[in-house]
């Protein structure tokens, strides 16, 4: 193995992980507010299509990302309206959001599978990016990779270092109490859901703007579900989202490389590993320190808030 190959592997892992980081960190904030949105896959695919379409017509990556964010928020706002205003069941609404998102993206995306776009390229900082080893490993990624890490930091900062973050966590843990002392539960939750939609939108757009320059129906291929698993994996702690995404991305990429080197581990088992890891972590969360788990899991997760006063 030479260092070029190792750098390629690390860049490959980062590309496989970043869509998961975006989608998970958005969903983490949503769940911290006590809302369970299973529509991540649907919001991602809509973001992937919106980003692709705008990039194709305008060639402007900034506009494309903006479109992906807005599209993710638009479809998330349906979920917000249904669950927060009409008080529908979170699980059922989230599942239909995924089905709706996949369907409408397939419908609107007709015709776009016959074209390709220019990929958003990695940054290149003169001198810094040219340094051996350190250059490509620290300064050679796509700008969205840095944005993903920044968003994780931002969510952590918001949740644990701001007053609004504290209120949001309080709402997630006990919406009745938060309401009783005068906080607007619905407003916080709607804003959190919209943020989740924006992040899922970027996560999806990463697939069609950075990973491959094409649009394909169902191109998210279950990544939204993995992102949901990662939120549990992280036990609702922002920085653990990065760890989880790197494990998932790492196994995906390493099993492909292992096949190329004919390392004799059955590829099916390797493909299973990320999912087995999630189950193992879920089990260990349950078996481990119960008081700690209870502290991080929002108590009102998925429960409908109905103000009676």
């Amino acid at each position, binding site marked *: 193995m030479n260092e070029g190959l190792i750098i390629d592997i690390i860049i490959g892992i980062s590309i496989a992980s970043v869509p998961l980081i975006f989608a998970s960190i958005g969903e983490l904030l949503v769940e911290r507010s006590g809302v369970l949105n299973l529509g991540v896959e649907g919001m991602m695919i809509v973001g992937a299509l919106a980003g692709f379409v705008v990039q194709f017509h305008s060639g402007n990556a900034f506009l494309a990302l903006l479109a992906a964010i807005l599209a993710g928020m638009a479809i998330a706002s349906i979920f917000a309206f249904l669950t927060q205003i009409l008080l529908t069941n979170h699980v059922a609404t989230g599942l239909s959001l995924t089905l709706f998102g996949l369907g409408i993206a397939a419908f609107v995306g007709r015709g776009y599978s016959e074209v390709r776009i220019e990929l958003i390229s990695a940054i290149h900082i003169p001198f810094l990016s040219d340094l051996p080893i350190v250059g490509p490993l620290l300064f050679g990624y796509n700008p969205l990779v840095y944005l993903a890490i920044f968003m994780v930091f931002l969510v952590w900062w918001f949740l644990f270092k701001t007053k609004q973050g504290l209120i949001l966590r309080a709402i997630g843990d006990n919406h009745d109490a938060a309401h009783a002392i005068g906080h607007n539960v619905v407003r916080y939750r709607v804003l959190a859901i919209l943020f989740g939609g924006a992040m899922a939108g970027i996560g999806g757009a990463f697939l069609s703007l950075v990973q*491959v320059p*094409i649009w394909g*129906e169902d191109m998210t291929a279950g990544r939204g579900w993995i992102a949901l698993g990662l939120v549990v994996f992280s036990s609702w702690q922002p920085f653990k989202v990065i760890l989880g995404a790197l494990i998932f991305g790492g196994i995906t990429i390493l099993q492909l490389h292992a096949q190329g080197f004919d390392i004799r581990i059955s*590829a099916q088992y390797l493909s299973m590993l990320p999912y087995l890891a999630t189950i193992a972590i879920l089990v260990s969360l349950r078996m481990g320190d119960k008081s700690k788990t209870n502290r991080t899991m929002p108590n009102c997760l998925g429960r409908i808030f109905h103000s009676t006063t």
Partner: protein
Amino acid sequence: MSNRKLTSILKFSLLSAILAFTSSVFADPTKAAFVYVGPIGDMGWTYQHHQGVEYVKSHMGDDVEITYVESVPEGADAERVIENLARDNDIVFTTSFGYMNPTVKVAKRYPDVKFEHATGYMLADNVSVYSARFYENRHVIGKIAGRMTESNIVGYIASYPIPEVIRGINSAFLAARSVNPDVQFKIIWAYTWFDPGKEADAANALIAQGADVLMQHTDSTAIMTIAEEKGIYAFGQASDMSAFGPNAHLTSIIDIWGPYYLKRIIAARYGTWESTDTFGGAEEGMLVLSSLSDKLPADVKEEAEKTFDDLVNGNVDPFTGPINKQDGSPWLAEGETPPMFPDVITMDFYVEGIDSKYPD
């Protein structure tokens, strides 16, 4: 008065005669249904089947009514979809290997409906199977790959270890070796037919490991776009993918299903349909190559064209001995070609010279 009555009776009988005549000539349209494994827009396998459907429509017009369902997973759901379509169609085409068992199951419950299953091998009175000898075109692109690689590493992104895919790998490898004794294949199994992200990851992994020519047996155009980004060569699968990698694209294997579909639907319409086992190739016009890239040196291009012509004329079999299996045991003697069944149809081994371990 009676005269008028007579005319009206005459008019009425004339009208009914015309009606009877027209309804016998312009019978109800034949109802055909298609089950697709991917979206029509995959620009690969499913897209090409749908091109076949368009061909049928353009030839039969109002005489045919076609329904299709896209992106049907090859699991329990497939049976439900096939059964729904069987209820009100005359003939149902299921266009992926994984639909084999559900197709046969549903066919038992609907003995009056005709079924056509692509790439499988289970026949019944009302189930035909059809496929194309895709490995013939891989014989041609194998030769091109063997000539064009400079690193002597050809990357191969495969879907699932089923006979169709194994035949393709063996055929391409033997052809590549015949023109370049140093060439080696790196094979990655993606375990999906369509996941652009994963296919791109696999392509990047192969390129990082030194591959400078990529072949794919998955359906999306992602691999072609990655080859273009990285400045290497690749071959398209199932339909013409040159638009996704103008510099990378050497040629595409193109499946031609239209004439077969037309023939079978017409047979169903006029009651001449019988259960058959079709395995067509270049000779029958079921496979063609898209135009060869002008990046190819003249002699390579000429060789590829000649190889394809030999296939069309039936002069060459990609599996012509002497060939050993991967473990060194003899398969075909000098000049021998394998019987279609079981050797080719159920192929489940690599040929000698391939380094990769055969998938479990």
